[in-house]
């Protein structure tokens, strides 16, 4: 009974922490509008714009309300956000390298999962070898220090 209680408490704790994290980062997915303001070379600035999905190119175009035209972007808004946030000296990511920013910051959980998988693989190998050779354990190098 006590063991079940502890398991239930641990489950509730984990669920609570995950919910807390989701609640904390809930507005991360909202569009920041940074790409529209970005002063990058081949992207045209639009004063009063609205984002429209372009079926042909598969990118997000900007509908310019003042001139009633569609402005095609060479890079999507997500590209611009990643590039400017990663390389910005005063940004929150501070990676100086977009790939590093993706691997260790935006996709940090992915790297954490990979490290955990490696850890689990090593643990599995050690357990399997110890089960296969229970008596020769002392003879294997380094076990006794």
């Amino acid at each position, binding site marked *: 009974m006590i063991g079940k209680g502890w398991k239930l408490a641990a489950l509730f704790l984990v669920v609570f922490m995950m919910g807390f994290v989701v609640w904390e980062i809930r507005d991360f997915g909202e569009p920041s509008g940074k790409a529209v303001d970005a002063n990058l070379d081949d992207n045209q600035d639009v004063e009063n714009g609205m984002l429209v999905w372009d079926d042909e190119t598969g990118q997000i175009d900007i509908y310019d309300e003042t001139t009633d035209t569609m402005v095609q972007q060479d890079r999507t808004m997500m590209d611009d956000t990643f590039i400017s946030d990663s*390389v910005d*000296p005063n940004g*929150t990511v501070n990676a100086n*390298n977009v790939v590093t920013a993706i691997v260790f910051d935006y996709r940090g959980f992915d790297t954490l999962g990979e490290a955990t998988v490696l850890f689990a693989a090593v643990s599995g*190998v*050690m357990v399997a070898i110890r089960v296969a050779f229970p008596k*020769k354990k002392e003879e294997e190098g380094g076990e006794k220090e």
Partner: protein
Amino acid sequence: MKEMSPIVKTITKISFAAIFLFGLYIILHGHLTPGGGFQGGAIIGTLMALYLVAFGAVKWRKKVLSIIESTGLLVFIGTGLLGLTTGYFFFNFIGGTDNPIFGQQLNGGELIGDVAFPSNSAPLLSSGTISIMNMAVGLEVIAALTLIIVTMGLFAFAGSEEGE
């Protein structure tokens, strides 16, 4: 497991330091150049496999390797958790704070002609937690791959292994 011929052993001795330094370079410059903790750790793990093949099963300190591996993973998770104090999980709370260790300012890239060169032009001790996590992952991968190779090598040659 028997040792290999003197040719292999000499070549291994000569190239050991060079390969080890290259792996360390890949790990330490992981936030600036292509590569990172996984890749550099794989290089050094492969070097350990070469050492095992050339010199046979010498005494490996498997307990020390286990401790290094666990330390790497714990440092990685701990760095991510410390970000919760000022922001969210994996928040880079050191980067860009003018801290001389891992907090030096990036220069934001420079324009040479028409082409921007944003990467590979920053101080080594920059990028905050990203550098720390790179090194932690590198340590973990080195220890993990070495441990797998050593354990499976001892398993394969358990009959003739003398442990030196």
